[in-house]
């Protein structure tokens, strides 16, 4: 390679910094042993937050590099910051858990950092090959993380299931990518867009379906969701919290960029797919969660449902719809991380408990904890004036403006059904007999829970930062 043609590295600077930092931390861990797990966790969090700051302070406008396959626009910045913050929070949530189980592993934060690099590549990917690279970088780490409790049968089972199904979905995605390449002759999104503008064929649609099946798997949308409940329940809780936050952000980003950038001219076709998937996800997420007693499993269905709601915005296919998805994703991350902070504080002397029945009478034993969980649950149910309401409001609004009335109506009805199981937990906390109390929460959990709770509670007071950044992020795609 000619040094003169060395691509500009500035747009990828945060990723490079993270990669180098991860290597350094790995060396540090390997040579100084597991005694420094906490230091490594702290450094990893610092590294992620530093990367977030760098993302924000990159030169403005749309930057491209690596021959157009790596794009940094406002959309990418928004999603990257979200993913980085989510990852950092996931590390913060994990320390106390692994400590109390005496399962401290210094690899854990490093793996998360590596996975986050994959997510950032995924978010910035502007052609199919870059997309696949980012996706696999992220996913391979996730498989490992799901099985990180090597001695736990459930954890191993979760990792294996996730890996097998993930491999299947990757196969589908690759198959779709090859079909698209075959029918358009290019892998770059802009090239695909140009080619589809001239002519579409059934083969291209086949490719589209397979490609989207891969996307759906990552955001656990129905019918590609089946892994979610089992993996969420089986994986260690901090890992579940991580699965439910940052990778979902990356998945949504990939989905949006893939759909909007690569296939703008066959939007009616992929809108049908996304609409169907959104309806199925909302309904399944709402109905299936009612039958759950395990809080993590319930959250799995909850996240399926929420992905369905978010996809309504994408189904609209408009700038406003994308903006709705971005707002939804951001608020979803806050709600989910807060809720998992509560799940991670459900620890008794005998160990961690995960049943929602264990929350009974929480309002009397831990009033503050119960209050924050109630706020989060009301927000998840979409009750004004909490943030969750506005999340749903913006996607429904976009759907209405795009004429997708059926989608909006089904969404509202599904959210009514979903409200049942969120409120049922509130009822258990506030009206049922008090049970045995939990062990005190760690400081990290308190910080995450407090921040998430306050964001949800006070979003309506000062919503403009999120709304404005989401608006400019959405605009950069069109």
């Amino acid at each position: 390679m000619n040094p003169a043609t060395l691509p500009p590295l500035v747009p990828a600077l945060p990723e490079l910094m993270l990669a180098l930092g991860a290597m350094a931390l790995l060396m540090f861990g390997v040579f100084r042993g597991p005694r420094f797990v906490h230091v490594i966790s702290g450094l990893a969090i610092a590294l992620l937050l530093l990367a977030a700051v760098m993302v924000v302070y990159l030169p403005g406008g749309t930057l491209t590099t690596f021959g157009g396959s790596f794009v940094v626009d406002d959309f990418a910045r928004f999603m990257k910051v979200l993913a980085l913050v989510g990852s950092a929070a996931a590390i913060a949530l994990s320390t106390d858990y692994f400590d109390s189980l005496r399962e401290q592993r210094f690899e854990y934060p490093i793996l998360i950092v590596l996975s986050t690099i994959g997510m950032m590549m995924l978010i910035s990917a502007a052609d199919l090959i870059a997309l696949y690279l980012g996706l696999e970088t992220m996913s391979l780490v996730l498989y490992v993380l799901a099985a990180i409790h090597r001695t736990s049968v459930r954890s191993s089972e979760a990792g294996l299931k996730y890996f097998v199904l993930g491999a299947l979905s990757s196969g589908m995605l690759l198959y779709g990518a090859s079909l698209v390449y075959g029918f358009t002759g290019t892998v770059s999104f802009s090239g695909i867009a140009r080619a589809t503008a001239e002519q579409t064929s059934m083969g291209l649609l086949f490719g589209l379906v397979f490609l989207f099946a891969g996307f759906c798997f990552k955001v656990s949308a129905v019918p590609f969701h089946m892994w979610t409940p089992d993996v969420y329940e089986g994986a260690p809780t901090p890992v579940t919290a991580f699965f439910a936050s940052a990778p979902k952000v990356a998945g949504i980003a990939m989905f949006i960029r893939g759909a909007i950038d690569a296939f703008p001219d066959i939007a009616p076709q992929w809108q049908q797919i996304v609409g169907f998937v959104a309806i199925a996800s909302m309904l399944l997420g709402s109905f299936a969660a009612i039958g759950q007693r395990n809080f993590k499993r319930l959250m799995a269905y909850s996240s399926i449902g929420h992905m369905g709601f978010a996809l309504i915005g994408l189904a609209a296919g408009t700038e406003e719809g994308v903006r709705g998805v971005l707002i939804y994703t951001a608020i979803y991350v806050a709600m989910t991380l807060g809720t998992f902070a509560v799940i991670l504080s459900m620890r008794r002397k005998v160990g961690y408990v995960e049943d929602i029945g264990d929350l009974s009478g929480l309002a009397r034993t831990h009033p503050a904890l119960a209050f924050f969980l109630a706020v989060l649950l009301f927000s998840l149910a979409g009750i004004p004036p909490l943030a969750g309401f506005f999340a749903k409001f913006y996607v429904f609004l976009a759907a209405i403006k795009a004429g997708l009335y059926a989608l909006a109506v089904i969404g509202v009805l599904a959210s009514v059904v979903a409200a049942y199981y969120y409120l049922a937990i509130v009822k258990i906390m506030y009206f049922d007999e008090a049970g045995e109390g939990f062990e005190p929460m760690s400081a990290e959990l308190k910080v995450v829970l407090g921040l998430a709770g306050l964001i949800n509670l006070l979003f309506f007071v000062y919503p403009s930062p999120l709304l404005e950044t989401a608006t400019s992020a959405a605009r950069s795609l069109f």
Partner: protein
Amino acid sequence: MYQAIVLLPLLGAILAGIIAIAGARARHPGGSPAPGAENHADNAHAGGHGAGASALHADIAHASSHHAADGHGHAAEPPAQGSRAAELITSTLLVISAILSWIAFVRIGFQQEDMRVALFPWIVSGELQVDWALRIDSLTAVMLVVVTTVSALVHIYSIGYMAEDPHRPRFFAYLSLFTFAMLALVTSDNLAQLFFGWEGVGLASYLLIGFWYQRPSANAAAIKAFIVNRVGDFGFALGIFALFALTSSINFDAVFAEGPVLANKTMHFLSWEASALTLVCILLFMGAMGKSAQFLLHTWLPDAMEGPTPVSALIHAATMVTAGVFMVARLSPLFEYSPTALAVVTFFGATTAFFAATVGLVQNDIKRIIAYSTCSQLGYMFVAMGVGAYSVGMFHLFTHAFFKALLFLGSGSVILAMHHEQDIRLMGGLKDKIPVTYWMMVIGTLALTGFPLTAGYFSKDAIIEAAYAGKNPMAVYGFGLTLIAAALTSFYSWRLVFKTFHGAPHDRHHYEHAKESPAVMLVPLALLAVGSLAAGLMFRDIFTGHGVAEFFRDSLKFAEGNHVLEDMHHVPTFVALLPTVMMLIGFAVAYDFYLRRPEAPVRLAEQHALLYRFLLNKWYFDELYEVLFVRPALRLGRLLWKGGDGYVIDGFGPDGVSARVIDVTRGVVRLQTGYLYHYAFAMLIGVAALITWFMFGGAH
């Protein structure tokens, strides 16, 4: 001054109410009293009524075995704090109000100071303009005197009668509230205000009938009174609406001015064209029928005797039940132009007078006899109204208030002496034990039956004469029936006196312990007795004589061709003597049956068993209504409850939806088998379905 008359009772009600609430708080801190705590053995006798659902036939069980325990055994519970204060406050305020009323009576009636006291605007909505105002004229003045006087005496009497009751503050608050509502009714300047008072007295009546709420029969009676009055009020409200539709106003002055015009209008009602005025009058009269317990809507009044006896005297004899009569008098400028409506009024009045008197013949509960008597006398008043002799009707209302209150309060004294025994078959020979009460009852009976020179003699005989002189088609009917009813009245009244006070005592135990009531109860009796004896002679001229036009002036309307007041003074002599003869016949028969040959009535009853049972069961009205209205209503209610609400709304609404949600959930959860190949299969199916869709369906 007029404001004071009306508002002093309200002030008393509020103060007594505050005392009652504070007392209840003090006694039951932190919640309502336990329902069982105040219950007594008398529930057992009322248990036969079943639940409140049988409200409308509550008195069936009473017919034979009524043994109501008026104020039974409450002594076990300590009296509420401040009872004395509540009694004194309300009674004092009422006495002041009564004195002011008499002053007002003289000023208005004889110094002719009619006026309209506007208080404040009440409803302003489009064309509807309703002010809160006091209409002060002679008609109002008569009612003010009646209401405040009887109410004040009843308040004082109640201090003695209710002495053992633990809930006196509440009782006095209700009594004063009633008085306020009644005063609002009689001083009303428009139909809305009249309706306010109308419903206010209905509410107070409901509360007081059910005063002993621990007793199911009292609750049933209260509900019955309320519901039966709804029927009448429905007509009343329709009448007001119709009047507003016709005249765009419900203020009396504006409406009355339209009276002659309306007589020639017609309006569309239930698919037929009716004379507007007749229709309005008959609808309004429906309200009067309900409130004044006229034939067909009378069933609630006998049951209302479940309330404490002072309540029966005040509300269900002297004042509230006469509101219907007052209303017809007040609306005489309308009724006067509708001969048809007046004929209807006469018909129902006469029928009620006769019907209630026949039922009164065979009743055995002392209060029920007087209740039927009240019903019958109200019929008389309506006969007078119907034949156009409004002032005569008002005269009977005026005198009746005195002697009927006297009879009720006297019977209350008897009941107290007999330890809450109300069955006259178990009494007898009481005249030596409670002589004062005995003489009071005799005076009341003389006045009621129309003994010469007593109050009833002037008013009742005047009605019979007016009916004879009346010109409307029903006047003859009214004359005949009121005449027969006069004999019946005399018979049942003396029967009551003879069975209660004469002969041998039937219940020695109660007899031995019977003792005269305290002075606080006897003084009101004495005052009422004076009224019963003298009111007729004193006021006969202004109500029936030549003073009518000067006294009532514009408050009553006599149309051009209405000479009934003049004609009634020129009826043949035999007509004037007939009522007295009838009274003597009734007395003679009663004397014969119950003093000379006590076995005669029993034999007579056996000979005419069918007739006896017909009368004893009050012409089977309760049973008829039970079949016609109560059961179908319950059936309909059950249908809507079980079928409408339970099956349709719950089934397809909340319960059904939640059940389907659970079903769906169960199905969805079952999909999650845990097998990897199932999951992979689902993904492939999903892809296949989407591709199939694009190949055959959705692709453009």
